[in-house]
Every structure is written in structure tokens, then in C-alpha cells.
């Protein structure tokens, strides 16, 4: 008999007023009792719509049924069949717009907490199973993966399972891409990413750090001189976007990428770190933008002791961030200045930010994407005293791969063009993730990594 409670089991979390002063994980994860209770809310639909809502089509009712049967490792194996990074997805996927949006229980009451259950299963596996995954028999084909973010790791995992000889090339000194430089420790502990990377290594995947492909070796050289039969480009999004307003290059104006990289990858949140960050204790920070990256930057600033505004030009309803992130940010004391847009940043005489002029906005007619267009309210400008401004406006593709790979077609925005099999305009070169789509989510990048792996496998096993 299923559990017919209309509400999902709440996620145990650190108290807002405690967690906004530390970098430890916010959500603590279900206990076994909570997981069992929540799992019993799944109706095990014959035609599970949740699976269609998942970019990598995890067999959701199947893994939940294993939880009900207390076969947690079995549940993990079901997820692992289609997802290389369960512990990551259980934490950072926007489930409310994917699997859980389609859940039949959501029609009346809350959807089943699929993401929370996925996390429970993955954490159970990490805590209780230490044996390395089996190393598959080699099939003799060599594949190079460029970038070790979610797209690259997924592609590497899927190919390694089939016996490919996979080498992942990473430009930074640590594997994980946005999972290590972008997403903060309190949302995704780095030890979890490391476990996923170690799992791939155990399956035989090789990782080469400090390799900026396009500079030290080109894609053509990888294929012609190093014997790689196929290449997957998962190099991620590139350069941060700015607003092109006066004062944007003052000291104290960061792109969210720089701010988060200093904190996450370079550990600048620790007092004795070698990499500096401007001191934020008692200071005022304005984060411009409304996506997940903006929430991450705002919540990091709060933890470093700042008074934080999120400045966003539309209303709360249009915030592109995951609902949970917005709720967490509000609980932690971050102030949302919605329907506001910066027009100028002012500096003091030594070049540091001292204030930002904002203008009030109102919403007009919907644009082509259906979002109501923000319009400036004439004469409503006012000056907001701030010490630091973080621009979280998205990114544009890094030009490096394109400029060093003759014959690689890109679109108007600079994103790599691929066909339905994930292949670029160059034979044997596949691509996916933000390098193709521009800034998107971890799970979409993983879906693209899967598609690339499938395309490569079909080409090379012919």
C-alpha cells in the first residue's frame, strides 16, 4: 500500500542562521526511515512520465522500488546504468522542472522527492560499498575527451563501460570542471566529485591535467599524431558576460566565474589560502542576475560575512534559478532587489567600488521566449551603496577550440554546431554541454555527454 501523504518528506538541513556562516553542506540527506517513507509515495506507474522528464532517462520507478525493498545497492546500480554521477545529480539537478514536474503525485500535493531519494541511494553506496567497479575488457579503440566537467565525465564513463581506452584532458589542475570551480562546497562537497572521478579512474579512464587543448595540442594532432580515433569536446562555457555599463572594470567588480573560482577551486574562503579575495566581512555585495550561479555567488558572499543583495531585472516569478536555491538564499538573509537593473557603478579615488546606480523596472509584453520583457521606469534611478559587485549574467563560448580547429563549425553565438548524433562538422569530433548550448545545467551537459558517447560508439563499432 503506497504512502498517500500529500507532502514529501522535508530535507533535513542546517539551520539558516547557522549555515550562512559556514561552507558545510546545507542539505544533510534523508535518513533511512525518511527514504523508505518517501519511496513508498511512488505509485510505480506503468507509463512513468518522470523517466521522460530526465535528460538521461534514469529508470526512476525501478530504483525507487529497490529502495522500498531495502536493496539500496540494487537501487544504485539501476541509477548507475544511465547516470555516471548519481551523487552529483541528486544534489544539483533542477528536479522540479524535470522528473518531478511530470510525477503524477504532483497533480495533487507534492511530487515524489526523486532527487532526494537519488541522493540517499548514491550516498548509501559511497558510504557502504568500497569495491571498485569492474574494469571492462578493452575493445582497442582510443577516445580523447576535452574537459572534465559533467559532459566530459559522463561521456568518459559511458565509453569506459564499453571498453574504450579513454583519456580526459583538463585545462585546470583539478578534474570536475564547473563541479569544482563553480558549484560551492555547501551545495556539492568536492569530496563527492573526487569520488566520481576516482570511480572513473578505477574503470581505466586516464586523466591528464594542465592540458589546454588548442594550445599545447590541437584536436587534429590528437587524432593524427596521438592515435585518438574520436574526440568529444566538452570544454564548457567560456568568457563571462558583462553589462557594458560604466565602472564595470573597477576593483571590486567580479564576474561570478572569477568570484566562484577563487572561492571554490582556489579555496579563498579559507583564511590561510594563497589566492586572495577582497575581504567581505561587514561589506555590502550586489550580485547582478537571477540564475543558479547568481544564487551561488550571493550565498558565498553571505558566508564570508557580507550583507548581500541580488539585483534582478524581472520579478521573483521569472528568476531562472532552481526554486530551492532561491528559498535557501532568502532563508539565509539575502535581500532580493527584484525589478531593478544597474546602470552605472561608481568608484572611489583609488579605483574601488563605492556604489551602484540602479533603475527600477516594470514588466511589459512577453518576449519570444514567453518571458515578460523588463522596461525601465524613467527617472527612477537611485544610488545603492555597495563595496563589491558580482556580475552573474552568463557566459559566451571560449574561442580557443574553434580558432585552433580548422573546419569546426560554430553558430552565431560561438557555440559548436552538432548533428542529432552529437557529431560536429568534423568527422569523428563530437561535442556537447555548454560548449554547444551556452550556459545550461549539469544534467543537460550529462545528457549531451551520453549522446556523444553513443555517437562515438556507433561510429567506432561499425
Amino acid at each position, binding site marked *: 500500500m503506497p504512502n498517500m501523504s500529500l507532502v514529501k518528506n522535508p530535507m533535513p538541513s542546517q539551520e539558516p542562521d547557522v549555515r550562512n556562516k559556514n561552507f558545510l553542506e546545507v542539505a544533510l540527506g534523508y535518513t533511512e526511515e525518511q527514504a523508505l517513507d518517501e519511496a513508498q509515495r511512488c505509485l510505480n506507474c506503468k507509463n512513468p512520465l518522470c523517466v521522460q522528464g530526465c535528460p538521461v532517462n534514469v529508470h526512476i520507478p525501478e530504483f525507487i522500488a529497490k529502495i522500498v525493498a531495502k536493496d539500496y545497492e540494487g537501487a544504485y546500480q539501476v541509477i548507475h546504468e544511465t547516470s555516471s554521477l548519481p551523487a552529483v545529480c541528486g544534489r544539483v539537478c533542477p528536479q522540479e522542472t524535470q522528473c518531478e514536474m511530470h510525477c503524477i503525485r504532483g497533480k495533487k500535493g507534492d511530487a515524489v522527492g526523486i532527487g532526494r531519494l537519488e541522493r540517499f541511494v548514491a550516498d548509501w553506496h559511497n558510504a557502504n560499498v568500497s569495491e571498485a567497479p569492474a574494469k571492462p575488457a578493452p575493445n582497442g579503440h582510443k577516445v580523447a575527451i576535452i574537459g572534465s566537467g559533467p559532459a566530459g565525465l559522463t561521456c568518459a564513463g559511458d565509453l569506459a563501460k564499453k571498453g574504450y581506452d579513454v583519456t580526459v584532458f583538463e*585545462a585546470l589542475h583539478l578534474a570536475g570542471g564547473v563541479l569544482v570551480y563553480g558549484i560551492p562546497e555547501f551545495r556539492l562537497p568536492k569530496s563527492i566529485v573526487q569520488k566520481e572521478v576516482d570511480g572513473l579512474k578505477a574503470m581505466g579512464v586516464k586523466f591528464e591535467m594542465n592540458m589546454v587543448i588548442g594550445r599545447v595540442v590541437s584536436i587534429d594532432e590528437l587524432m593524427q599524431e596521438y592515435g585518438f580515433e574520436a574526440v568529444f569536446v566538452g570544454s564548457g562555457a*567560456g568568457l563571462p558576460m*558583462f553589462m557594458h555599463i560604466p565602472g564595470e572594470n573597477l576593483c571590486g567588480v567580479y564576474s561570478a566565474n572569477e568570484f566562484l573560482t577563487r572561492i571554490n577551486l582556489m579555496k579563498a574562503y579559507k583564511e590561510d589560502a594563497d589566492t586572495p579575495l577582497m575581504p567581505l566581512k561587514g561589506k555590502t555585495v550586489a550580485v547582478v542576475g537571477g540564475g543558479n550561479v547568481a544564487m551561488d555567488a550571493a550565498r558565498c558572499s553571505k558566508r564570508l560575512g557580507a550583507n548581500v543583495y541580488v539585483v534582478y531585472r524581472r520579478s521573483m516569478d521569472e528568476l531562472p534559478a532552481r526554486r530551492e536555491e532561491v528559498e535557501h538564499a532568502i532563508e539565509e538573509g539575502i535581500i532580493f532587489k527584484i525589478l531593478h537593473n544597474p546602470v552605472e557603478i561608481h568608484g572611489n579615488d583609488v579605483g574601488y567600488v563605492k556604489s551602484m546606480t540602479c533603475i527600477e523596472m516594470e514588466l511589459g509584453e512577453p518576449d519570444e521566449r514567453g518571458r515578460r520583457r523588463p522596461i525601465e521606469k524613467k527617472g527612477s534611478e537611485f544610488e545603492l551603496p555597495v563595496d563589491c559587485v558580482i556580475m552573474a549574467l552568463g557566459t559566451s563560448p571560449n574561442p580557443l577550440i574553434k580558432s585552433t580547429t580548422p573546419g569546426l563549425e560554430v553558430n552565431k553565438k560561438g557555440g559548436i554546431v552538432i548533428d542529432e548524433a552529437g557529431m560536429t562538422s568534423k568527422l569523428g569530433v563530437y561535442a556537447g554541454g555548454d560548449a554547444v548550448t551556452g550556459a545550461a545545467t549539469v544534467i543537460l551537459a550529462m545528457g549531451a555527454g551520453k549522446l556523444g558517447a553513443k555517437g562515438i560508439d556507433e561510429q567506432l563499432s561499425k
Partner: protein
Amino acid sequence: MYRIVTKKVLTPTLVLIEIEAPMIAKKAEPGQFIILRVDEDGERIPITIHDFDREKGTVSIIYQIVGATTEKLSHKEEGDYIQDFVGPLGNATEMPGCKKVAVVGGGVGTAIAFPVAKKLHESGVHVDLIVGFRNKDVVVLEDEFRKASTNFFVGTDDGSYVRKALVTELLEEQIQAGANYDAVFCVGPMMMMKFVCKVTEKYNIPTIVSMSPIMVDGTGMCGCCRLTLKEADGTSVTKFACVDGPDFDGFKVDWDESVKRGKMYGEWERHKHEETCNLFKKEVK
């Protein structure tokens, strides 16, 4: 991990190290840079390539001991390893069609001027190499400079070696004497580059400057290294030194902004350097 093959202490604060990095050595070109980390949890710092040996598979850099990271690096000896060494990054220096150029270097910038001068000189370009130092104690690499140039000019700020002259004065003398340069390449402290551009702009000689802003990833991801180029029509555009540079048209660079951005962590760095020095002193005791 990357091995230090040779180490030469050029002056008390200027050190040359040759690093084993065959893949980078194979591709490196004058004007490009590398990013290094000394140890686990270390900071990523960009340093321009001084020289490379494709056969030996090594890349040389010259660094000035100015902060905690370079202080730690200076305690690494021949045979020791550094954690990370990434490159070659940025675009190589290009001066197409030039037959006669001046290469101007100041301070640690002379280390970067060297490979550019050498490459141009080897390809048959007339190279006047003009370098400036604070005083005679910090004059370095003179023999190498002479070999890499047609004419070599050196000045010191206090006149303790050769003559008292700033690089701007040495450069302007040559221009006035009819040197007729097709272009000038300039690298060194920001203020020096700014004033070199003021001279060359008077004579309308195209001037390329090699910028070295603060960087974090150095691969086109964080945007820390951005600078403003002012166009003739009054508009301005943001560029990223790591992927668009490090070379830029010196007449267009917004120098005041770049100088201020370069000092952003100055106070912090001085403090951190002191702390690190004290740690090393304690170890010695």
C-alpha cells in the same frame, strides 16, 4: 609535477628557472605565457615565457620575488618539482611585415623582450633592443641581449651603469636620430609601457605592448584579466588578456584603469609575502 632542470639566481630578487615540460616546449612561441602553481593549494600565477628549447624539452621563465608565491618558488632548487605548469597560453607576438623595430624592456619585462627580439633578429629584422634597469646591481642577461639584437642600448635610473637614462629617453633619441622604426614592441612595468606609448604616439609609430594583468585560470574562463581598449571613435571595448592578448595596441589601452586593477590585491600580497618570509626564516633557525 614538473622538474626544475636548472636555476640561476640573476640578482637577489630575479631568478631564472628552466622547467622540464616537453609538450609546452614543442609549441611555445615568443610572447606567450605559462601559469604555474608551486604546491598543492598554491595560487595560480601567470609568467611570460623567457626561452624554450624544443630539443631538450624545457621552458625557461624569469620571475621576480615579489609575493608569497614567488617567495616559495625561490626556495625550490634544481631537481625539485613544482606542482603545475600550464601552457603555452595567449597569442604569440606577431609583427608581420616589419623590417626595422625597437624592442623595449624594463625590469623583469626584459626577460620577455628577449625571446621576441631573438626571434625577430633571427628572421632578419633589424632590432634595436632598448632596456632599462634601476641600477647596475640589477643589470642582467647583457650578453644574451647583445646576441639577440642589431644594436643594444642600456640605461639605468641612477646612472650607475653605462648612463643615466630612462628607456623612453633612449628610444626617443633613436627616433630623433632617424631610426625610422616600422613598429615598437614594449614590455615592462605598466607605467613604463604607458610612457613609451606617449613617446611613440608623438611619432606615430605603431606600438605593441605585452600586458600582464592579474589572472586566475588564464584559459578564458574567469574574466579577471580584462582591460579596456579605447577606439579612435570614442567607443571602448573590453578584452581578455588571456585569450585576446597578451599583446595589445598600446595606443588603445586604458592605462589608468589597468594600473588600478593591477594593484587590487597589493596590500594583501605585501602582508602575505611578509608572513611567508617569516615562515622561511623560522625554518632556517
